[in-house]
């Protein structure tokens, strides 16, 4: 199928989110401003003020309330969206679990930012990494174009009746949130049709009826009440199953969108770059992949078999895909833009290493912590990582499993 004709707009990552949300027929946006996310809801509030959307815009007194309002709206069957970052996301922590436990498909954009203290408004992924066990789908975008595409896909994924989980679209603070790029946007009617209207699976209610899962006075139901030790566990197991289903749904929605837009990101879960015959490879999330790809191109032109695996879906984690993508590589460097204090490496390192444990080939694997608090990561530094990998392959052993990029020792 030929992709549809598209406009090119100059948008930063935040504006790309707002534009996508405008096209997704969202019923409720409840939000509280925080840098570097502010532009998202600022732009969206302009759409509301100009009458370009029919969305109910709720100004709340905190992020905790913003997500609570979105959860409540979502439970009535509305399509709800919010955005946050850093301390704002941390304040939502309690409600993140309530939202996923109530199976409310809220979509939230996160402009990734460091956490205090000390105060820092710049980009790193500590905020979303700290919420990786909250039951939310997490998709990390590489550029403003992918941000736009991912927000549209996120509604379809989250609202899929076999998934019904809230979803975060993560964009690196400032590198993506505030950098203007050319973004191809689909026509309004195409997006509206792609996203469609919310579908509701039927559930058995206390009246003994099978009713659509939403709060409706004609079909009263109680959601997320008290569950004792004899039932709580079963509900958590259901959420894990929904995550497993999400792996396939993310892929399907991505492929369907690719046909319409002409844009694809690997299989939607993992985006490999020159990995087929690679001997050494890095793994990263988000905007850093852009820099890494440029370095891979340089190395390839010099005859070095370098590759990259960008993880797009971190939750659910495509464990099998990661194993298959990396097991034939000789040495892997996993890049973490957050720390897991005392955890022997960052979260991405833990999980990629975990994915490779079941492989007979088990390549060497090392961790690079980088870019905390918005520190720039240069192509030179990425080259140095690949050089380290070459040395590891040459020597046949790892001397320093965890290193810090650009840190003054």
């Amino acid at each position, binding site marked *: 199928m030929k992709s549809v004709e598209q406009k090119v707009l100059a948008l930063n990552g935040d504006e790309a989110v707002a534009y996508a949300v405008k096209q997704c027929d969202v019923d409720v946006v409840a939000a509280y401003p925080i840098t570097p996310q502010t532009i998202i809801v600022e732009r969206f509030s302009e759409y509301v003020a100009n009458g370009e959307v029919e969305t109910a815009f709720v100004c709340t007194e905190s992020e905790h309330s913003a997500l609570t309002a979105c959860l409540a709206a979502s439970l009535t069957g509305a399509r709800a969206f919010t955005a946050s970052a850093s301390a704002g996301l941390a304040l939502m922590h309690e409600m993140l679990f309530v939202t996923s*436990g*109530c*199976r*409310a498909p809220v979509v939230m954009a996160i402009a990734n930012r460091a956490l205090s203290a000390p105060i820092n408004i710049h980009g790193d992924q500590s905020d979303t990494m700290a919420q990786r066990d909250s039951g939310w789908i997490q998709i990390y975008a590489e550029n403003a174009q992918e941000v736009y595409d991912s927000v549209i896909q996120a509604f379809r994924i989250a609202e899929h009746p076999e998934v*019904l989980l809230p979803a975060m679209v993560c964009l690196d603070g400032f590198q993506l949130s505030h950098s203007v790029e050319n973004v191809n946007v689909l026509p309004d009617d195409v997006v509206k049709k792609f996203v469609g209207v919310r579908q509701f*699976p039927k*559930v*058995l*209610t*206390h*009246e003994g009826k099978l009713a659509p*899962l939403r709060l409706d006075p004609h079909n009263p*139901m*109680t*959601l*997320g*009440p008290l*569950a*004792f030790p*004899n*039932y709580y*566990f*079963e*509900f958590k*197991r*259901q959420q894990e*199953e*929904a995550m497993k289903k999400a792996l396939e749904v993310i892929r399907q929605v991505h492929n369907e969108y690719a046909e319409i837009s002409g844009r694809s990101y690997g299989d939607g879960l993992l985006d490999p770059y020159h990995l087929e015959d690679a001997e050494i490879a890095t793994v990263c999330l988000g905007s850093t992949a852009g820099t890494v790809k440029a370095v891979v191109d340089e190395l390839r032109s010099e005859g070095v078999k370098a590759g990259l695996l960008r993880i797009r879906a971190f939750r659910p984690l495509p464990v099998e895909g990661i194993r298959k993508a990396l097991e034939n590589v000789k040495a892997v460097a996993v890049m973490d833009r957050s720390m897991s204090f005392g955890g022997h490496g960052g979260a991405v390192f833990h999980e990629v290493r975990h994915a490779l444990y079941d492989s007979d080939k088990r390549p060497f694997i090392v961790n690079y912590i980088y870019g905390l608090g918005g520190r720039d990561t240069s192509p030179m530094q990425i080259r140095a990582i690949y050089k380290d990998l070459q040395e590891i392959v040459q020597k046949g052993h790892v001397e320093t499993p965890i290193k810090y990029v650009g840190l003054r020792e």
Partner: protein
Amino acid sequence: MTLKEKEKSWKEISIAAVCWKPSTEFLTGDWKTYKPVRDPAKCTRCLLCVIFCPDGAIHWKADRNDIEFDYNYCKGCGVCANECPVKAIEMKLE
């Protein structure tokens, strides 16, 4: 808290913890340690206990001109005994 059915697997229950049984099916009376016992001779049928019971577990039976404790839901809080103006209700260890 007793539910009069076999405990189900995660595949059989509604998602989002939607209740598939009305709350009256969950017998919360098994939480209690102390049980209210009334002396019918002292009781004046003033019905204050009926009003004060936070669980609605004391019923007025008009046909018998009497009250009745529903021990399936009485949690043994003792509010009735405390409020009874003629001290007709005693909390007894179960």
